[in-house]
């Protein structure tokens, strides 16, 4: 009886998790140890940031979760939506660059995941338009990517990640190349989307300020091979807005996260 109860609580614990990585390592073909061993558990609906120096394996973690690469050891578990046969539909991925197809207009770019999944054209277009509307780009469906600014391209990329209605959103330094004003606006829009949709978001960044502003948890990583240096919970009044960005609580969190991050940079005197 006791054993049975124990196993059911373990199951209950697992189902509440969106993503779990256990003892995961990644060694590249050239022998470089990029990651690990790395353990991470992300609950459903949680917004967490992975923060660390360049080359610490943050992006590798996302690629492992998305099954774009396989771990050298350890296990990666991702909770799947029921009845979704195609891989990837439970996951939306926003890359560092907008990664749009230059030969297709914005609507077709957003529709791509649905097209690949065999969703009928008319339905796909309607859903693409809805996703575009949710990121404020309803009027640009017929534009080509080259006609858009950097921030708008990133929004298209976000719309494409959302169009399959995934449970988990993986974002790999999506706003790193944008100017600060655009970045703040996209931060706010992303938070609003997250509040509305309650997706699990794993957000990779190397900005302390961005990670604290956005996430419920900041996971600080060490330099290569990436391990977890600190796991800091950010607790504040929701919904967050500009007043949080200027509060002392915010700057205190930023100081704590920066302090946790400092050892990762200590060996890199040239930076």
């Amino acid at each position, binding site marked *: 009886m006791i054993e049975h109860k124990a196993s059911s609580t373990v199951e209950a614990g697992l189902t509440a998790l969106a993503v779990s990585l256990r003892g995961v390592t990644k060694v590249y073909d050239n022998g470089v140890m990029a990651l690990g061993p790395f353990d991470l558990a992300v609950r459903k609906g949680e917004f967490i940031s992975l923060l660390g120096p360049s080359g610490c394996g943050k992006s590798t973690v996302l690629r492992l979760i998305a099954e774009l690469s396989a771990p050298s050891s350890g296990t990666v578990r991702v909770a799947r939506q029921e009845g979704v046969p195609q891989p990837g*539909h439970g996951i939306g991925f926003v890359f560092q660059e907008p990664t749009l197809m230059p030969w*297709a207009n914005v609507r077709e770019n957003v529709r791509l995941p649905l097209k690949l999944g065999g969703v009928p054209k008319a339905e796909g277009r309607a859903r693409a338009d809805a996703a575009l509307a949710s990121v404020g780009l309803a009027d640009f469906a017929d*534009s080509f990517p*080259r*006609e*858009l600014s950097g921030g708008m391209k990133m929004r298209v990329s976000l719309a494409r990640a959302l169009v399959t209605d995934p449970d988990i959103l993986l974002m790999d330094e999506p706003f790193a190349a944008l100017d600060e004003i655009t970045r703040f606006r996209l931060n706010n829009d992303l938070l609003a989307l997250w509040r509305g949709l309650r997706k699990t978001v794993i957000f990779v960044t190397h900005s302390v300020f961005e990670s604290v502003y956005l996430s419920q948890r900041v996971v600080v990583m060490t330099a290569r091979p990436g391990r977890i240096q600190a796991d800091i919970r950010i607790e504040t009044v929701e919904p967050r807005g500009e007043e949080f960005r200027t509060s002392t609580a915010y700057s205190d969190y930023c100081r704590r996260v920066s302090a946790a991050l400092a050892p990762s940079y200590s060996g890199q005197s040239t930076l």
Partner: protein
Amino acid sequence: MNAQAPVPAKSSGAQRAMRFVLPVIVFAAGLFAWELVVRIREIPPYVLPAPSVIVLTLIKDRAVLSQSLATTLVTTLEGFVAASIGGIALALLFNQSKWVEYSLFPYAIVLQVTPVIAIAPLLLIYLEQQTAVVVCAFIVAFFPVLSNTTLGLNSVDRNLAGLFQLYGASKPQTLRFLKLPAALPYILGGLRIAGGLSLIGAVVAEIAAGTAGAGSGLAYRIAESGYRLNIPRMFAALLLLSLAGIVIYGVLALVSHLVLRRWHESALGKEN
């Protein structure tokens, strides 16, 4: 949201006009000088015909020359189509299987680096003349299509490829929606080179075929007129060949521009 659609840079109309007018002036001046030299020094037409004589020959011999032009153009077109289909198909095959690529690519290079003028006489022994000429055009033209298409298929954006993988794209889907569109600018570049080269291939083969038979392409006319010391007709045929080359290039450049103008940098550069 601010729409930041790039405003096309205003190219000054005068500069654009000059780019068209200047070569024409140079051409006219050259022709005028040529005509003048021939008349003043009374050079006989079998040594150097004046431009006016060449034009007159063009009109006088139009029946023979237009028939030859048609023959050469058909050969060129057949060679070009064969090279395009062959080059693209082989590149796709290489892209699907590394083993096939490793097995065959060296031979594609051998075919390319061996001068076609040296292969033509052999082909003429084993093949019917018309077939041999088309095969020559094909051999010269297919390599740029192959290598450009291969390059294009291999220059797919890594993140886009990851995206297709993430959404579980099948191989045919990846080919159709990602690799082929990404390779399109390269393929069109290859076709543009192949167009001119298939004309060269056709001409080389016609000359190699020489007086061997029914061949009546423009290159054959040039060789034939040379033997007969009909120099004005040589020039007239050469002029037609040159014009054919320009038209082929122009048509392919136009097609490339029309296909790519909405998204590719090369086409945008022209518009701005």
